[in-house]
């Protein structure tokens, strides 16, 4: 017992209508990397917030190094040696790294000393970072380093990391893992929250699994398979989608040097994107967020019109056609942002069915909407994609992220597209639902549709894609068959080192 750092005993926290944590107990040892696993809504964030002093438990207690530990606010937690790196960064773009770090401190040392400390820490832990760089110019990975260094300057005994790898390239993930292992060797404990099971297997010593607010199991990740962990998370076994080796048909959608200016100050221009996707094929497009994913989707959906001759669908130039014309022709799309882009938050599911299904599903005749038919279509999507909702009259914003995602993806799939372009189809969706969505995409491809799946989840892309390309600063790497790729090559493609470009110039 002497080497237990944090002992959690019977923590319970209820919110109106839902018990977020129900009698959760586990121990984190000194120098241990402990994984906290669970689907969305399993209670991970609530638990972590209690440890970090953001939320007070209703019941239960925590012992830190054998002494009672009940942080009233995050600064109490920090004083006790608990630090946290959040999934969403709180940094000021206009300030430099050192200034940002100083802002988070109670009594910041003089700037020059702080800059020196930052440099020291960053060198010690292999996280290269220039304290005088302005944060606005940093990549997502570098911003995360700022947050990590901010924590490390406090010499924490326990470091909490919330989904740290979701914004990183594989190379950056490797660097992060090196840092975490070094911290561990120095005796720092790490509570690592993630749903990426392979990562947990390579990094973590112990795992605690939560489901619906309860602890449902512990395991030693190295000794079980990812699938076993996933099943513990979900509570039942689920099907791993299996790509079917179908004959690939004719080219359905083709981009020929598609270039477009950035849509706004924070957008990314598209630069000479060329791609082809055939009937029955899934083309996976990876890349770190903000490298043109949204812009590519808008160019393909027709929300922004491309220059003439850039986009070809079934042999015809559709570059100047708007979304309705493209939908009529059979090119459908699903944007990343569910609320406000794929669906109107305050409108009902029935109304949101009309949003894209109006014409292909014949919900409108002579300009008048057939609300009965629209409701029928909404109910069909709800039933076929297992959307948990009281009914089609509910506003889209009332659905949980995963359920709404099933709804908006299902809405397009049930319209039987010839080509379906989707961005982040399983973002924020629990494992079972994600598997169902992936399976639906594969089924669609098996029926002869071509699919372009843009995603930041590499595991997902490897699982369902036939070919893979990566976006980097608005450029698309040459696409390669997934079978000939390994994680190293993918990382290089994502990082923009197009070593294979030469061979494909004439494509």
């Amino acid at each position, binding site marked *: 017992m002497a080497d237990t750092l944090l002992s959690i005993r019977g923590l319970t926290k209820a919110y109106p209508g839902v018990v977020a944590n129900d009698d959760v107990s586990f121990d984190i040892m000194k120098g241990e990397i402990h994984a906290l696993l669970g689907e969305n809504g399993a209670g991970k964030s609530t638990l972590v917030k209690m440890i970090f002093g953001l939320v*007070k438990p209703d019941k239960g207690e925590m012992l830190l190094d054998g002494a009672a530990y*009940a942080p*009233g606010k995050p600064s109490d937690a920090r004083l006790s040696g608990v630090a946290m790196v959040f999934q969403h960064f709180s940094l000021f773009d206009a300030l430099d790294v050192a200034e940002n770090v100083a802002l988070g401190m109670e009594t910041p040392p003089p700037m020059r000393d702080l800059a020196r400390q930052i440099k020291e820490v960053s060198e010690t832990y292999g996280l290269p970072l220039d304290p005088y760089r302005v944060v606005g110019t940093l990549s997502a990975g570098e911003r995360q380093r700022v947050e990590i260094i901010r924590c490390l300057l406090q010499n924490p005994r326990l470091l909490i990391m919330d989904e740290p790898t979701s914004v990183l390239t594989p190379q950056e993930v490797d660097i992060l893992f090196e840092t975490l292992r070094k911290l561990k060797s120095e005796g720092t404990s790490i509570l690592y929250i993630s749903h990426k099971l392979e990562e947990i297997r390579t990094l973590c010593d112990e795992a605690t699994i939560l489901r619906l607010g309860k602890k449902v199991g512990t395991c030693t990740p190295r000794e079980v398979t990812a699938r076993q962990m996933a099943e513990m998370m979900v509570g039942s076994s689920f099907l791993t989608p299996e790509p079917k080796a179908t004959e690939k048909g004719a080219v359905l959608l083709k981009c020929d040097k598609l270039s477009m200016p950035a849509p706004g100050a924070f957008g990314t221009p598209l630069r000479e994107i060329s791609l082809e996707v055939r009937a029955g094929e899934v083309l996976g497009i990876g890349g770190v967020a903000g490298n043109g994913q949204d812009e590519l989707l808008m160019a393909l*959906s*027709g*929300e922004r019109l491309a220059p003439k001759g850039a986009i070809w669908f079934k042999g015809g130039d559709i570059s100047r056609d*708007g*979304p*309705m*014309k493209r*939908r009529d022709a059979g090119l459908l*799309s699903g*944007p990343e*942002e569910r609320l*406000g*882009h*794929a*669906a*109107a*938050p*305050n*409108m009902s599911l029935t*109304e949101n069915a*009309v*949003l*894209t299904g*109006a014409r292909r599903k014949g919900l*409108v005749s002579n*300009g*008048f*909407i057939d*609300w009965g038919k629209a409701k029928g279509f909404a109910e069909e999507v709800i039933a076929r994609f297992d959307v948990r909702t009281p009914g089609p009259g*509910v*506003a889209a*914003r*009332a659905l949980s992220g995963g359920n709404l995602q099933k709804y908006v993806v299902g809405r397009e799939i049930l319209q039987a597209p010839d080509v379906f372009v989707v961005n982040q189809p399983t973002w924020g969706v629990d494992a079972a639902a994600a598997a169902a969505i992936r399976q639906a995409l594969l089924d669609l491809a098996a029926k002869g549709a071509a699919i372009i799946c843009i995603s930041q989840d590499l595991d997902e892309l490897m699982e369902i894609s036939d070919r893979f390309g990566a976006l980097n600063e608005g450029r698309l790497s040459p696409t390669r068959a997934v079978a000939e790729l390994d994680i190293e090559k993918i990382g290089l493609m994502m990082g923009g080192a197009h070593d294979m470009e030469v061979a494909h110039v004439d494509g």
Partner: protein
Amino acid sequence: MIRLEKRPNPSRLWTALTPVLAVVLTMLVGGIMFALLGKPPLEAIRTIFWDPLFHPQFAGYSRPQLLVKAGPLILIAIGLSVGFRAGIWNIGAEGQYIMGAVCGAAVGLAFYPADTWLLFPLMAIAGALGGWAWAMIPAFLKTRFGTNEILVSLMLVYVAENILASASAGWLRNPEGMGFPGSRNFKQWASVYNDELVINTGMHWGVVAAFIAVIAAYVLMARHIQGFNIRLTGEAPRAARFSGVSPARIIFLCLGISGALAGMAGLFEVTGPAGQISIDFNSGYGFTAIIVAFLGRLNPFGILLAGLLMALTYIGGELAQLMLGLPGASIQLFQGMLLFFLLATDVFTNYRVRLTGREVA
């Protein structure tokens, strides 16, 4: 502590209840205001809300006025509500109303003294076109140069007022009017006079048009795909673009509808209750209609009721000025309060109020 919690679904109960609550609060605070002005509050409120309809002496005159005043308010507000649903803020209905009246009257006067029933419909169309054209200016500037339609449409009200002044003093002046400003009086020109259709009801063609507009707007917004697109644009502009709705088309459509309806309201007014183009022919209907549109929750039938209520405060306000000597500004303040309370109570439709104690450690 008081905390606002977002409701997952907008509350239907509160959507219906807020206008009532706003009216009650306006009466309360208005009453306090009247009391501070040294007027008996209860009597003032009774004079505004009750006497116009039921006073033994005045009701005979003021009851038909209800529809006369409500007609243009409803007609304009219906048009505005369509745009407001799309997030297009046409504040310049007053200008479109004036331009409709001027254009319609000009077309009619060009044929003076023709005696054909065809002329009145022609004038109505000209009036609608005048208001429409005036609204196309902010629409064009917005779609082409990204200008703000609120400012442009509002500025154009003052331009329209100047055009109205020049018309009544110059190019539309009654040649037989002995040099007085103001056009020929339509009340003395039977074939175009927009008289009461049923005696002593105040019902003229403008009121009929308003009722038709209410029904048409309901059908448009609830059943037609264009109405759906308008709502979608207002709710989620990005989702609208994703759906394939062209923002520019919605801007032209919405400003066009509101401009045409305001213009038509102007024409019905000038050929009916007002009788002639004069410098002060416009009486702020275009601005009051904004309040009516919101008071009616941008819902056509709500607007119908709100228009009647607003007309009542107009007539009652005049009556209160006459009988209690209340200043005219206090009546306007009273109407403003109504909008203020409506917007304030609106928070309950989307939010739930929670009283929270301090969290227990």
